[in-house]
């Protein structure tokens, strides 16, 4: 009984923890501009993150190696370092966006300007990273993140023309006024938001910290294969709400307040309150995850002690990095830069950083030296190679598309 409860809890937190500021903003923006015509890309990204999260989780369970260990072991110090710098920058960017997202969510409740809230949020995130028992925080925030189900309820209450929504899923249903370059740009952004590399860093490092063994592979798979797709459905619900309310009215989503507005229209005050709580939980949880991921990747590259289960005194370097990352994030936000814009940039740069992270995972997942009998089967390999190609295309296309569409405005 207790075991089933643990599995259920894991799945629920995986659902609640799946969505972060990147998913919230990008899905609402895309829904408002393209209706449901990009839902296929969300599905593609969700399956992709499932494939690679399962591989990295399996490697963590069997060989106790986290993702950045593999990156350095297979890419060598030079390429590994390049990847380290790139991933750290992208994860730091995401970290900044998440802290900004928490501040924006609190702004909606307090009407205080978010710049006033940022220092407190940063301090709270750092305290959690330093002191709190992470699994409990993860569970609480993950369960609170389930509040985003409000979007699914709102979509149902809004009573859209379901036939039209479903028919709009085809890319051919792209609104007339939008160019294909803009369409492709947002496809890359959505893909990057769904497959952000920090999710894999965090997932595998968490597995190593919690001392998964090959017996835990089943539970891990349940979390990934049930939790992530259901989390992805929340993303789709956000896009669906935006498509129903904003697309006909010609509204472009630029703020977090707008992201929640369809819920107010659909359900009302209570629903909106629940969803704003979901914003807070999702962004705060992701802020903790991204913050830890910066520390994890640096520590794993250089091999010094890391983790929440090592006493702070022993993992001093790890905790100094966390502190530095938090200070940098707060500093950047206090310059007055728009957190939503940071989010938009972070998801696109995520797409660029993907190949160097996912390639070593795929190679090691085939290595019997690490995995023994648990090496990839043919399905995982076929999907892995397919996604490697997709990721490479997305990474190469990201910067040109960004320039051509001036970040999706054209």
């Amino acid at each position: 009984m207790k075991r089933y409860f643990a599995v259920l809890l894991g799945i629920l937190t995986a659902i609640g923890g799946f969505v972060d500021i990147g998913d919230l903003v990008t899905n609402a923006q895309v829904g408002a501009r393209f209706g449901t015509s990009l839902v296929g890309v969300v599905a593609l990204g969700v399956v992709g993150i499932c494939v690679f999260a399962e591989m990295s989780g399996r490697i963590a369970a069997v060989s106790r190696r986290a993702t950045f260990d593999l990156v350095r072991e297979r890419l060598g110090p030079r390429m590994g370092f390049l990847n380290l710098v790139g991933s750290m920058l992208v994860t730091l960017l995401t970290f900044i966006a998440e802290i900004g997202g928490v501040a924006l969510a609190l702004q909606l409740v307090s009407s205080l300007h978010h710049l006033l809230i940022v220092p407190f949020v940063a301090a709270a995130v750092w305290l959690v990273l330093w002191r709190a028992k992470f699994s409990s925080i993860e569970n609480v925030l993950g369960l609170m993140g389930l509040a985003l189900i409000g979007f699914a309820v709102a979509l149902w209450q809004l009573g859209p023309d379901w036939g039209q929504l479903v028919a709009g899923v085809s890319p051919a249903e792209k609104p007339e006024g939008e160019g294909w370059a803009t369409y492709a740009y947002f496809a890359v952004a959505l893909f990057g938001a769904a497959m952000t590399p920090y999710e894999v860093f965090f997932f595998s490092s968490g597995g190593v910290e919690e001392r998964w063994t090959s017996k835990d592979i089943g539970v891990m798979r349940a979390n990934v294969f049930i939790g992530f797709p259901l989390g992805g459905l929340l993303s789709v619900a956000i896009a669906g709400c935006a498509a129903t309310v904003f697309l006909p009215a010609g509204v472009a989503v630029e703020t977090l307040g707008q992201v929640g507005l369809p819920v107010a229209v659909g359900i009302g005050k209570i629903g909106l309150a629940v969803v704003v709580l979901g914003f807070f939980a999702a962004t705060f949880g992701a802020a903790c995850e991204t913050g830890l991921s910066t520390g994890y990747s640096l520590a794993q590259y250089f091999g010094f002690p890391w983790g929440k289960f090592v006493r702070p005194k022993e993992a001093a370097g790890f905790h100094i990095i966390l502190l530095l990352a938090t200070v940098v994030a707060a500093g950047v936000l206090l310059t007055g830069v728009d957190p939503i814009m940071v989010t938009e940039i972070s998801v696109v740069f995520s797409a660029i950083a993907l190949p160097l992270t996912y390639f070593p995972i795929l190679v090691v997942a085939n290595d019997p030296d690490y995995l023994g009998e648990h090496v990839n089967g043919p399905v995982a390999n076929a999907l892995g190679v397919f996604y490697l190609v997709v990721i490479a295309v997305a990474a190469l296309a990201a910067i040109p598309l960004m320039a051509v569409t001036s970040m999706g405005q054209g």
Partner: protein
Amino acid sequence: MKRSQRPAVVAVLLALALLLAGCGVVSRPGPAAWDDRAAQALTDAGSEVATARLALESARKGRTWSSYTTVLLAEAEEAAGKVEEDLSRLQVPAGRADAAAHVLDLLGRAVDLVGEARAHAVSGKYDDQALLDQLDRLSDELQQAAP
């Protein structure tokens, strides 16, 4: 300098020169580019007006709380103001003077109206049907003006 590095340096310098050529103090778009910018500005302003309308309507029906409405409208006002400001700073190309006056007038009205909506929201007056109608009409006008 090593010989092998010379082409790279030349390329970087050329790119920098090109970049600088595109960034004067005053941006002077051609007629077609100005039309694009104007259309984009009208679309953006229309988005802010529609947001203000949605926010006010939801507040009137008691579907949001006051601070949420205030934040939404304040952000819409700020964004609309920025749209108007950005377009008004462009050098208007020859033969677009009338169009520019019309567009800037529409944008100015959008800023004023969203500002009024914000003022209503802060003082808690949500059920001003006249204001909602005005927002509606302006939203339509903006949509028609933007091709």
